[in-house]
């Protein structure tokens, strides 16, 4: 089994603030999505990322978050175990981020002995 990372790219939130009920429903969807991957024995680890942040660019150019004006922002990632890129990619289906305009990117993790 190899490791792959699923990157969850958010669409810019804009002015659409979800209601507490919507947030609650979203949380359940994420919970079940992760549970489904874990139930297949393929979940390794993962993290959500906060919306705040700072970026350092060449020439010591510093930009602060939040990134509302940026087209997309990495909302979180999980590492999974799978036999192939295609198998890992199967796990992207059903991801709740797809219902709110975001997308999932799947990339192999390069091991130290590769």
């Amino acid at each position, binding site marked *: 089994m190899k490791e792959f990372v699923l990157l969850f790219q958010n669409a810019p939130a804009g002015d659409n603030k979800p209601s507490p009920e919507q947030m609650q429903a979203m949380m*359940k969807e994420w919970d*079940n999505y992760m*549970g*489904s991957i*874990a*139930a*297949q*024995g393929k*979940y390794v680890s*993962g993290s959500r990322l906060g919306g705040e942040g700072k970026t350092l660019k060449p020439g010591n150019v510093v930009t602060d978050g939040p990134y509302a004006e940026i087209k997309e922002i990495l909302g979180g990632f999980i590492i999974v175990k799978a036999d192939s890129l295609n198998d890992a990619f199967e796990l992207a289906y059903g991801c709740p981020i797809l219902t709110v305009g975001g997308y999932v990117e799947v990339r192999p993790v390069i091991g130290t002995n590769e």
Partner: protein
Amino acid sequence: MHQENELIPHLFRTEYAKIVAVLCKLLGIEHMQLAEDVVSDTFLLAAETWGMKGLPQNPVAWLYTVAKNKARDVLKRNAIFSNKIVATLKHSGSEQIAEDIDIDLSEQNIADSQLQMMFTVCHPCIPAESRIGLALNILCGFSADEIADAFLTNREVIYKRLQRAKEKLYAQNIKIEMPGVQQVAERLGDVLTTLYLLFNEGYYSASQNTVTRKDLCLEAMRLSQLLTRNRYTNTPEVNALLALMCFHASRFDARTDATGATILYDEQDEHLWNNELIEQGKYFLSNADTQGLGKYYFEANIAYWHTHKADSIEKWENVLHLYNRLLQLEYSPVAALNRTYALSKVYGKQVAIPEAEKLGLRTHLYYVLLGYLFSDIDNTVALAHMQMALSLCRSENDKASIKKNIERLSSK
């Protein structure tokens, strides 16, 4: 005579391991055999004396006194005495020393010695698979025969495994002592795993001997409780584990019928559930609630929701969430199957079927789940899955319940 016949096995079970722990601590682990011989002799003498003269007023006190005297006699004769014990008691006069040795069989010292022995048994030098047997033998007074019966293996295998583990303890001269605070934190996990497996061995074992199985569970609970009574080992994790055991044990009398066959959860008479244990479980769970949401925390909470017999959306949403979390922490096939069952309870069978098919398991329990999910959706498919389950199943208990399902589906 009848009374003595009942009493000695009972006392042997409760007192043997306690005295052995105290003597081992005093003599050093390398003289465990000596400690065991002293205690065995004590029980032998009890059997003879009580049989002839009747029971003493306080049988436990009698055992302790005789064990102390026998231990002193051994010490007087034995080389350990001059080499080891005297070295630590040099300030006293040589003649009196044997009489002065304090063999402390107080409740506190017994608890301390057994607690320390737990860490000794689960020492990193002992392979994980030997720790449960060793714990049963040294901490719970189980013979190799009884352990073999509980594990469904033969006596020779267990006996050899115990001997090898004990020799390792002697060879490495492992001290019976409380590890330092830092080490307790590092090694407590191994102790808990051993107690968890010990409990599961009793709870889920295929052995038909319900008495032995219950004893294993009760011993695991007793040892866990010892951990909650010590300042350094009374962690949220220990409380979570003990809560888990209490909730499961609360169903002990409801889950087997008179012949020892399993009664499934849905068919249990909840009036036979032990409310006192459920309340204790809630208490320990409340101590577990503070931090570090670990595996036992999620399992204990799942077990808590199962103390509510009636189906409710709240119950199954919680159970599903807890399984989602548990699986991310640690995958197990049983948790994956249970998670999918909970999913069907919340979102319906149609949602759960594709999830089940993704699990990639080929065990009889997997096909039982699929059989259940397809029931009333496609009974022909359901029947095929149940028949597959039956062909893979090795446990007589499970076979019986699968056959019932097949009968029910065939008549539809």
